[in-house]
């Protein structure tokens, strides 16, 4: 088995790299793939929180590199899905604790026994980014329909294009707000893809469910009703090569949904 190594990157911070990694990873695992998530944001680790695995981490990627444990020992299995594992970042170290070459070796090793290795990249274009990209042959560039995020994505795309080991990269447009687009107060999906001239892998709507799911430590793809969860599941299908049309984000709530939401909101 030769797995695919995909780096999830964005340049700008706070656009949803870690959320995307957690959700795509979980969705791919739910589809029966063996998946390893690598958090390369050493010093600022968060992927463990989004997966609800923060209390189970014994060894980190730095322990693996410094040979205090075997790679297998450092992989933390997901609570629900045995197909999904996390290689956590160290919280008390910095980006220089792991080199690009070491990360490449780890990816090569994990490739042998897994279908997908998703590398959650830190923000920025410095060494942390260079390391995260080193072992990957594909990339997902996460951006939002905001000027600063798109500008940074453009920079990242330029850097990815210069890397020979990156064979393909796709754009994931996150936190899209259809109502604002309708009012002409937010760049549309077409605007962003045209400006960046990059193919889309998915469009994720802004969803308050992301906050609550993070609070619970459970990726939103596990919530069958959430629109963002559905959008992430579609991304997972597309990564596996299926041709699935983009979600219609202008879905209007049905009357039944409205009544349901009315009652559930009252509870929350």
């Amino acid at each position, binding site marked *: 088995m030769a797995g695919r190594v995909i780096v999830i990157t964005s340049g700008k911070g706070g656009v949803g790299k870690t959320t995307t990694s957690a959700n795509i990873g979980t969705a791919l695992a739910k589809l029966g793939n063996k998946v390893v998530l690598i958090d390369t944001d050493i010093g600022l680790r968060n992927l463990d929180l989004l997966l609800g695995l923060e209390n189970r981490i014994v060894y980190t990627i730095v322990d693996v590199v410094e040979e205090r444990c075997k790679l297998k020992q450092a992989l933390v299995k997901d609570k629900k899905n045995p197909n999904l594992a996390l290689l956590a970042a160290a919280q008390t170290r910095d980006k220089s604790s792991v*080199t690009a*070459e070491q990360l490449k070796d780890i990816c090569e090793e994990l490739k042998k026994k897994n279908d997908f290795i998703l590398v959650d990249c830190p923000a920025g274009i410095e060494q942390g980014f260079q390391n995260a990209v080193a072992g990957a042959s594909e990339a997902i560039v996460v951006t939002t329909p905001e000027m600063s995020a798109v500008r940074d994505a*453009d920079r990242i795309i330029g850097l990815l294009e*210069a890397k020979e080991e990156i064979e393909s990269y796709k754009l994931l447009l996150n936190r899209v707000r259809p109502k604002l*687009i309708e009012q002409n107060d937010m760049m549309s999906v077409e*605007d962003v893809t045209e*400006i960046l001239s990059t193919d889309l892998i998915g469009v994720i709507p802004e969803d308050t469910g992301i906050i609550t799911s993070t609070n619970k430590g459970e990726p939103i793809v596990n919530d069958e009703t959430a629109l963002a969860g559905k959008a992430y599941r579609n991304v997972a299908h597309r990564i596996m090569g299926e041709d699935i049309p983009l979600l219609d984000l202008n879905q209007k709530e049905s009357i039944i949904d409205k009544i349901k939401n009315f009652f559930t909101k009252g509870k929350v």
Partner: protein
Amino acid sequence: MKDIFANLYNKVVSFFHQTDEKTSNTKDAACNRLKLVLMQDRTNLTPAIMDRMRRELIELLSKYMELDRELLDLNFEHEDDQMALMLSIPVIRAKNEDEINEILAKEDEERKKIEELSKSDDEEETDEETEDTEEETSESETEESEDTEDDNTDESESEEEDNSEDETESDEEDLEEEDDDDDDDEVDEEIDNDPTKTKKEKKKEKFFKKKKESEESSEQ
């Protein structure tokens, strides 16, 4: 009670405000600003240089036709590896032949004047320069014993450059008609150089990247 009325008033005002705002959409502003800033990011052209390029383009083109300067749109579009400069300016009116010839004749006259002025300056300058180079050579000769060989080669190279410049200048003086052609060639060269610039930069980046990687691997 006051609060309630104030609230109501605010709500009514904001309602009307909203309908006003609908006509002005911020999305187009975002798109346009972003396109501009990305153009600068991708090409390393600063706003000041872009502005100058825009001005010079207008100046050049308005010799031949009357243009709506306000609506000039300068953009870079890129497909795959290729980048293209897209320029669109509404033409108000095509100029007739006489007008164009008049402008060109005027320009030629001005150019000649400038050349004559600069020629007289040049003659003085070239004299000084030759003196300078002579001094330099004498200096370098004295320094030869102290300096390393590398420095000497550098200096001799720069001298060669100086000499070649002098030669071209003297050519220009001899043949004024050919001079114009030379200028056009120079413009062509400048345009030719622009697209290669980005390619060169790309190559440079790749080169440095490889260098970095090899350094990293050697460290380990």
